[in-house]
């Protein structure tokens, strides 16, 4: 699979149908350079540049409509960049089959007739190849993935009969079965109670320990600042990127959220009050 990187840029049919390319030695997991994405004249992302140089957990934070989902989808190779470039382990995203994208729970048809094990098996469809049905060994991989997220006992359960946290863990197991080398999760923590959120976050830490970085879109600033190694603050443009202490300064937050954020100085440092569900035109104090 020794090919020039430029050949992989647009992922021709040969690479799409074939096995994934070997990684470029020492290439960073994610390298985004001057990325812009436009849809029908509206700009979702503009001039975004950052690098994830080693396995980590990164929170992608910003107000509603800031382009968080778009950023994850471009890195996953679901949308093409309008300009700029995205490299995942040195190659364009569309030449990888090892990028897992976990959709928002509201985007999934939970009435679809599949069991927990069926959903996880879907992560293996490409590795199985056409014309083949899963065999014993494939189901063993599925069970192993479910075991890692603590869901193996529910393997025959229909996905509708799961709690929100269990649904999220099924999709994480699917990423494991996919042998994902990087995982994107869109709002995985929304609507979950604190212990369930903690369970998901621990799984992301385990993934990182295994060398798998994760990018997590969230609008929860406190979770982002307390539970992630890195944070990326977005509002169409990149506002700040780095460790949470470095990113979540009042200056950066004001720049990202503009009117929809209040910063109050309290005894234990600045207190941030954000209302990211509301696109109101409040003025900052």
């Amino acid at each position: 699979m020794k090919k020039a990187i430029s050949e992989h840029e647009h992922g021709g049919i040969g690479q799409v149908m074939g096995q994934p390319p070997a990684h470029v030695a020492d290439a960073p997991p994610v390298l985004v350079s001057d990325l812009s994405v436009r849809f029908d004249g509206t700009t979702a992302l503009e001039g975004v540049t950052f690098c994830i140089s080693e396995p980590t957990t990164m929170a992608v934070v910003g107000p509603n409509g800031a382009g968080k989902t778009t950023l994850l989808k471009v890195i996953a190779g679901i949308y093409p960049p309008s300009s700029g470039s995205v490299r995942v382990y040195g190659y364009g995203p569309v030449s990888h089959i090892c990028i897992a994208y976990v959709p928002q729970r509201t985007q999934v048809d939970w009435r679809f007739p599949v069991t927990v094990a069926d959903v996880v098996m879907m992560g293996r469809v490409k590795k199985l190849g056409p014309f083949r049905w899963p065999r014993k060994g494939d189901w063993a991989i599925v069970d192993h993935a479910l075991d890692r997220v603590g869901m193996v006992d529910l393997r025959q359960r229909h996905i509708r009969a799961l709690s929100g946290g269990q649904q999220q863990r099924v999709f994480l197991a699917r990423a494991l079965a996919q042998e994902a080398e990087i995982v994107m999760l869109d709002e995985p923590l929304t609507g979950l109670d604190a212990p369930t959120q903690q369970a998901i976050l621990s799984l992301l830490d385990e993934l990182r320990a295994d060398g798998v970085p994760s990018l997590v879109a969230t609008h929860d600033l406190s979770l982002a600042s307390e539970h992630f190694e890195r944070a990326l603050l977005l509002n169409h443009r990149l506002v700040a990127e780095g460790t949470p202490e470095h990113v979540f300064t009042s200056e950066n937050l004001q720049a990202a959220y503009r009117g929809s954020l209040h910063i109050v100085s309290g005894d234990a440092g600045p207190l941030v009050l954000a209302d990211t569900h509301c696109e109101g035109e409040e003025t900052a104090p």
Partner: protein
Amino acid sequence: MILIQGLLEPFSHAFMVRGLAAAIMVGIVCPVLGTYVVLRGMAFFGDALAHIVLPGVVLAFLLGWPVAIGALAAGISAALVIGRLSQRGRVAEDTAIGVVFAGAFALGVAMLSVRGSYAVDLTHILFGDLLGVRGVDLWLIAGLGLGVLVTIAAFYKEFMVISFDPLLATTLRLPVTWLRNLMLVLLAVVIVVSLQAVGVALVLAMLVTPAATATLITRRLIWVMILAAVIGAGSSLAGLYLSYYLNLASGPAIVLAATAVFGVVYAVVGRRDRTSGMIVRSPASDG
């Protein structure tokens, strides 16, 4: 003995045996593909496609060609054109389909109306002519139907992924557009196969009703397909008896049988869920 005699009597006629064979094959193939139609919310598309094949059917009929060839050509090209239109159109997808669907149907009816036997011909095309099935038709239905089933078996898991989670299909770099077009071509083929059994106007029922019934009962895709095929074949058999003894048109009788099964299952499942106190959790709630 009288019962057995009553059950066997209709099939002492060769045309009834051929009709039954055709109806059962259609009753199996339609619901298997129809399962994807139901799960992907393509019911309107399927109905439109069934009507769009009409000009092709009529043209072949007027020229004295095999009807299936005209229908296949019209159906496959329409499926691919609409698939393309709906992806990047200036009008909404259902509007585009509606315009093409109604226009093509009118064209087919207008073409047919130049003939003297207009009313009879139109009735056969709209509602099927099961008792007029010839031996050669049976071979055509069997061959095309088997081809559809084999294709679905070959791409079962890929079709499942593009139906359940198209984004996963993209990140797995499956050929999504190619798979979607393949499914549309299969739909066109199935519609052609079903024309003689249930006709243009009622194909939708065989695609949607048995599969919808099966989704109420079982929770795995493969079982939905198998159960839908059993319901479809059973409806075909029951419909033919209804047709024979009550002197009903066979296509509508088959569809009525399938609809009755749906109604009963819907009522029973609804009652079971209420009495067992089974609470289906919404994904938004958490525990």
